[in-house]
């Protein structure tokens, strides 16, 4: 027994019958994380579903040599035969892969938890994890664009953006809409460069290009190209591998989980259109619960002859 002498002091009581801190009940704050949904932003388009196809790959066909891509020949004489033209064809593959995330807990944790971190609570966040995965897959795929537009010897600047705009415009058939996904540091470099262009320093344009964006992902539009930023943009050899493209150049396929058969023993959550299945498992012997999320999705690029696409590779520092 501890004796609290008069006057009773809070400092004495706290160490014997009190507490050093009080948690706010029922509240836990999630740490900062990028919440950039590339599907909602239209940066990635679906090419379909492999479920029931017998394959893990969706193959899309492309062709050229007719219509707008093939003007008629001007003939020199009234009787000259017209040479028959070839049609060029090709395919692009989008292959799904298995993505996964699991959590487990002891029965005792489930009993005692007061922080909303039971596995059942965490299961509700699996879709967020899926969207983060989709974004990461998009960035991994964009880093494989072959043609680089920026000057790799320096940090990204306005001149790179002028060159990128020219590369888009010099691509026959470019429809005028382009997006770019850059690393936030690349965005900072570009903004620094914009800052030194006097013509861009009128109050309205200064605000437009330099303001902080609360919206996840989107930053600003510059020279007609919508600029998004993600920490998932690849970094290698001291360079960031940002990328820019006509929407459609990067696509995803899923394996729908709609017809997986009976999963009632696992009390599943299905999101068929995204290829997600979340299952639960309880093991009384080890007194544990577990939740597993599987997603069957893949991201790939379509040929540059269909959609203009450029790497935006620039120095990290």
């Amino acid at each position: 027994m501890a004796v609290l002498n008069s006057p009773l002091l809070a400092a004495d009581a706290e160490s014997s019958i009190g507490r050093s801190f009080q948690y706010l009940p029922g509240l836990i704050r999630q740490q900062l994380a990028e919440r950039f949904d590339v599907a909602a932003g239209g940066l990635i388009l679906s090419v379909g579903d492999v479920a029931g196809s017998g394959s893990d790959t969706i193959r899309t066909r492309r062709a050229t040599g007719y219509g707008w891509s093939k003007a008629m020949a001007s003939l020199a004489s009234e009787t000259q035969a017209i040479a028959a033209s070839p049609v060029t064809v090709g395919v692009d593959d989008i292959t799904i892969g298995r993505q996964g995330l699991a959590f487990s807990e002891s029965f005792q944790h489930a009993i005692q938890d007061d922080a909303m971190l039971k596995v059942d609570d965490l299961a509700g966040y699996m879709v967020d994890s899926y969207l983060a995965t989709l974004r990461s897959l998009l960035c991994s795929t964009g880093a494989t664009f072959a043609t680089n537009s920026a000057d790799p010897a320096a940090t990204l600047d306005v001149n790179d953006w002028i060159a990128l705009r020219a590369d888009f415009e010099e691509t026959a058939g470019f429809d005028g809409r382009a997006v770019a996904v850059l690393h936030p540091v690349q965005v900072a470099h570009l903004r620094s460069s914009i800052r030194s262009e006097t013509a861009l320093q009128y109050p309205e344009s200064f605000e437009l290009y330099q303001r902080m964006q609360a919206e996840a992902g989107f930053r600003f539009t510059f020279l007609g190209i919508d600029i998004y930023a993600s920490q998932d943009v690849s970094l290698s050899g001291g360079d960031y591998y940002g990328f820019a493209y006509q929407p459609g150049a990067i696509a995803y396929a899923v394996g729908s989980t709609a017809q997986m058969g009976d999963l009632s023993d696992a009390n599943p959550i299905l999101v068929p259109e995204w290829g997600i299945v979340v299952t639960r498992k309880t093991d009384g012997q080890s007194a544990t619960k577990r939740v597993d999320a599987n997603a069957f999705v893949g991201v790939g690029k379509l040929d540059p002859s269909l959609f203009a696409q450029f790497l935006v590779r620039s120095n990290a520092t």
Partner: protein
Amino acid sequence: MGIPSDNLMDSRPASLGGLVDRPKLPLPGNSPFFLVHYTDVGGSWEVVEEGMDAPTFVPVLQPYPIRPGAAGVRTVSSDEPRSRMYARPLAKLQESGAIVLPLDFHVDAASLPAGVVAGPYLRETDAQGGAFYHTAWDTPRKAIRGNAATVDCDRASYNRWRASLVTSGIIPEPRAAVLEDVRSRALRRLDNVRSATDIPTDMREANTATARRRVDAVRAATLPQANPTPSAPKTAKKVTA
């Protein structure tokens, strides 16, 4: 008496993982990758000076992720070789003429930063979110500000190694038009900077001087010459279309 060395088959330093607490990089993990050189496309060659005696054209090497669900890489069954994951995109890359450096491509210590041991170009560092893969010339770290990853790249040795890939014949010299594209883009940049009359004169002059130095370097640049740099990897395998 010491233990006869004949009894120490395949001796190597013990992995102390799990026995000793080692700090892990406070970063998420990432995927392993190939290094790929796309041939005959814009931006596939660049001019570098750092670590070189004179401005030199070197091939650009891009990471190609080995990650199921990205860029054609697939999930394999448990009894399939792991290399089947990337067999199809690898074949497609080679079909397009790209040069893929195999994962077991050996890099001599002479082509690496001081203190980095010879071995494959792909290295991994333990991070809190799993393995963090990077090239042998990159040192990953958490950025001082914010919560992002960054790398410190030893560009001098990286440039010399890329030059050695050309002199050893691993990567063929490009068409003249590819190099001309590098020159014309540098000139276009100079024109852009020089014609930016809306910025203060001193700033325009500084920008113009930088762009002109770049043009001069690009004009003076030559393809790597045999043996001005550390020897090429002797065990390297050439993989071409």
